[in-house]
Every structure is written in structure tokens, then in C-alpha cells.
């Protein structure tokens, strides 16, 4: 088990939003957290990434207790993360966005950043950044464009480049297709499928789009009012009577819940 979460409780003052959540993620697995708005998905996600500290419970990553570790320490141990609204380094150009992440990895993993008076990134760093950009479909002529001028879909892709530049073992994706056009969603799903196939990376994601969940997820967990409603293979969860009533039902066809 790469991620072993046990008995997570979380309160905002008197309001308890997570009531003892436990889950386990296997290596190379894609694990999805779903649930209606206000179910505690985002809070649980933030507890797992290190942005919020749980009031009780433990999080173990590859056997190590990381419950109290801040976000950057988790990133150094192999966590990568993307945001619901893609966050990249706006004023920097595309290549520098990725270079910053590669250099950060080299800094904490004891790699070489070149001699101190060389201000430019080393050839190895540049080559690695360019390889990642190319792999995600950014043509050479765009490498020096400022990231703030990218379209929504391109920003999402660049964020992936930045996140993968630290060579994470587990990717935390907060609604990877939120706010995207259907064609961009399609492209993102293909990208994730390709990433899984090529690297065998572990993915933990929240997502609203049921089609994408059922296409990508190996297992999923349904949250409702801060409690685990169901957990298991997508098909089993879909057929679960309680889940149908609480979440998938509600008069909607599963494929059309984008809220």
C-alpha cells in the first residue's frame, strides 16, 4: 500500500466535516473520491496533500507517518499535485515554469544546479524541461511565451508538466477536468490514460464527471456528510443501492453531473 489513511477526523471549529475516514491506495492504482457538494471531498483532499492538518487520524506514505508533514515535505517525498483551477507561474515563460520545478527537485535531492556564477539553467535541466514540454504537446516556438497568456486547457497541461517535473510517485488531482470544454476533457482523459500506461504512476483524484471517473478509476470512494458511503470498484459502487439513492440518483443521469 503506497498511501494508508486511517481514522481521519477534521473539524472547522465546532463543525465536524470528516468523521473518521480510512482508505488505502495501492501502487499504480487510480483512486477517485466522489461525493455531492459539501461532502468533505476538498477537505479530505487538503488533509492528504498537507494543506490542512487533521484533528485526528494518521496518514502513512510508503510506511512512513506523514500526518504532520507540511506540503513541501510531502512533495519532496513524491507527492505531485494539480489544482482545480490550474495554477502555474504566470509571469514566467513555459520553459522556466518547468525549469523551476526541475531545479527544485535537484535542490532537495542533492543534484547539481551548476556553478554559482552560471545564472542560466544547466543544459541537463533545460533538456529535461524541454522533453517534458514536448511530451505534453508544447511546440518549441511556444517555450518562451509567458504562461499568463495560455488558454484554460493549455494551462492545465502546463500544470501537469510542472507537477511531473518533480518525478512524483503519487499524483493528487483536484478535479482535473473542471471547467473544461468537452473536447478538452477528452484530451485530458487521454493524457491521464497515457500517463498511467507509460509511467504506472499512482493517482488520487476528485472529479465530478462520472464518465471520466468510470473510465479512469480502478477504485472509488463515495463521501457523504464526511463519512464513507461506499468504496470499491466503479461497477460495484455504481450498483450500490445507497449510493444510487444518495448520489448518482437524484434525478440525474450519471453522465451529466458536472456541478
Amino acid at each position: 500500500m503506497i498511501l494508508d489513511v486511517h481514522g481521519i477526523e477534521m473539524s472547522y471549529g465546532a463543525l465536524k466535516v470528516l468523521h473518521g475516514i480510512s482508505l488505502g491506495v495501492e501502487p499504480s492504482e487510480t483512486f477517485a473520491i466522489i461525493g455531492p457538494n459539501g461532502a468533505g471531498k476538498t477537505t479530505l483532499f487538503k488533509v492528504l496533500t498537507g494543506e490542512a492538518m487533521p484533528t485526528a487520524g494518521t496518514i502513512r506514505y510508503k510506511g512512513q507517518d506523514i500526518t504532520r508533514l507540511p506540503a513541501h515535505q510531502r512533495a519532496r517525498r513524491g507527492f505531485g499535485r494539480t489544482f482545480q483551477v490550474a495554477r502555474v507561474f504566470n509571469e514566467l515563460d513555459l520553459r522556466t515554469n518547468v525549469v523551476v520545478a526541475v531545479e527544485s527537485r535537484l535542490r532537495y535531492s542533492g543534484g547539481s544546479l551548476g556553478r554559482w556564477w552560471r545564472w542560466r539553467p544547466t543544459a541537463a535541466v533545460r533538456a529535461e524541461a524541454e522533453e517534458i514540454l514536448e511530451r505534453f504537446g508544447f511546440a518549441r516556438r511556444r517555450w518562451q511565451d509567458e504562461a499568463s497568456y495560455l488558454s484554460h486547457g493549455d494551462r492545465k497541461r502546463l500544470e501537469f508538466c510542472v507537477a511531473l517535473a518533480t518525478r512524483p510517485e503519487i499524483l493528487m488531482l483536484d478535479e482535473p477536468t473542471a471547467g473544461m470544454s468537452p473536447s478538452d476533457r477528452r484530451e485530458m482523459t487521454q493524457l491521464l490514460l497515457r500517463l498511467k500506461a507509460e509511467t504506472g504512476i499512482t493517482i488520487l483524484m476528485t472529479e465530478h464527471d462520472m464518465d471520466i471517473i468510470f473510465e479512469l478509476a480502478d477504485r472509488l470512494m463515495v463521501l457523504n456528510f464526511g463519512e464513507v458511503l461506499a468504496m470499491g470498484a466503479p461497477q460495484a459502487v455504481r450498483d450500490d443501492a445507497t449510493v444510487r439513492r444518495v448520489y448518482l440518483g437524484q434525478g440525474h443521469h450519471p453522465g451529466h453531473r458536472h456541478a
Partner: protein
Amino acid sequence: MNRIAQIALLLLLAAFLFAPFLVNPGLVFIAGFALIQIVFALSWNLLFSYAGLISFGHAAFFGVGAYISAVVLRDGHGIHFVLVILICAVAGAVAALLVALVVLRRASGVQFAVLTLALSQLIVVLIGYSSLLGHDEGIAAIPRPVMEFGLFTLDLNRPLTNYYFVLAICLLAVGLMWLLVKGHMGRAMQAVRIDAERAAFIGIDVWRVRVVAFTISGAFAAVAGALLAPWGQIVTPDYVNWLQSAQPLFAALLGGAGFFWGPVVGVLGLSGINYLTRTFAGLSEVLVGASLILVVLLAPQGVLGAVRQFARRRGGGNPGGRP
């Protein structure tokens, strides 16, 4: 655009290099003073434009350098002045590190700015109580040092030597800061400024980057202060006061925040205004205020921002990349 910027930079360097042969001693004095303010403003801009921290009390570190240098020169300890500058740099760094460790624990935005202001004003008050530092009058008539370098001797009592010594140290400081912010450390600092949370998720220790930036910035501010003592020969609490802390902010706004060279343009502009209005008491403040308002209203990106926008419009199209 880049070519024009390079030429402008070379012309500026040439102007400073040949200043003693081109203009009268009064202007040379102002040029030396501007060089010191440039180093100070750039050290502040290291925080503002790169690490994303606004300090309103940066003059405290300038003061650390200025007072250590002034006391050592006044008391005639015979310490080599290059060593004095290094001592000032270390003292400035240590002072900044202590402030950063205390203040950056909790705050980084407005609270940080206010706390730095409060701390620096506290130092002004403490100087007023200190006989060693000359109370409110400060330390005047500071003797200029003579430096022995084995093969040659630098006597700062000779005006030409004095000017070129200040110029050399300032160029060295500017060069080191340029290397720092253009290198991987500068890129990490920018990442933190643009989006601290995103930066944390690529493994950057945001707090540590800010503390390191603040420490380095304090060291360079102190170096600028150390040069003031022999150049101006007087150090008063005015150099530690909030108005001195605000100078880099004015310079950065005027010249262009977000540009490494912005504060340089700003300091030159401010020095120009001060020089042209030297015979009218009070006029310089009015003009500085008016030009700041004008720049903020007409060119919020400062002089360099306006120039870049103009160049892009001339170059046509492509807002994202280089023209």
C-alpha cells in the same frame, strides 16, 4: 528591445565611469551617493520583485552598515576598510536573519510590512539614546580610510580614488545581486512570489526561501550603508528613518517594479530631481510626489514598463513572447 536595453546599460556604465572627468565635483558627489542608493534600492527590490516581500523598514539594515562603518572609522581602529565592509555585510545578514526568523514565522503580507517598519523605527529611537552612536545628531566628520593592498595603496582622501572605490564596490554588489536573481535561487524566489502554494507543491520550502532572501537582502543593504560613512562623512538617524526605508519603494515604482533595473532608473530620476531643485527648499519633495503620482497614474508599470509596452507596440503583435 534587448539590444536597446544593453546599449542603455553600457551608456549608463560609461557615464558613471567617466563622471569625474565630465562633470563638476558636486555632481560627482551626487553620482557616488546615487550609486550607494542604487545598491540599497536593489537590495530592497530583491525582496519586492523576486521574493514577494514588502519591507517598510529596510533602512534598519542600511543603518547597521552605516553605523558600524562610521564608528570603526571614527575610533580609528586601523581595520582594513574592505574587512569593515565584509563585517558590515555579515552584521546586516545576521540582523536580517534574526528579524526574518521572528517576523516571517507568522506573517508575510501587510503584517510583515508593518512589523518591519515598527522594528526599524525602534532602532531609530534606540540610536537616540546611544552616546556611542552620537544620539540624534549622529556621527559627523568621519575620517576617510587609507587601504593598504601590498602592491598599492588606496587613499580615499583623494577624491578620484574615493569615487572609483565606491563605484567598484557598487558594481560588484550589483553584479552579485544580478547573478543571484537571474540564477536558480532567483527563479525559486520568483516562484514563491507568484504562487507560494504552487511552489510548495514542487518541493520548494517557501519559508526558507523567504528567510534566505531577506538575509541576503539585509547583507547588501548593510554594504550600501558601509559605503555611505566614508563617502558622505556623516551618518545620522535620518538614514535609518522611514523616509530612507521608502526610497527604494519610490525608486522601484518610478523605474518599474518587477524589473531588476527598475530601481536603478528610479534612483537616477530621484537624484536628478533632487539635484535640479537643490536651491529651492521643499520643492524636491513636491516634485518627487508629483512625478510618483504621474507615473502611477499614467504608467503603473513604471518607466521601464512603459518603455517595454511601447517597444512591443512598435514590434507588433505577440504579447506573450519576445517581440
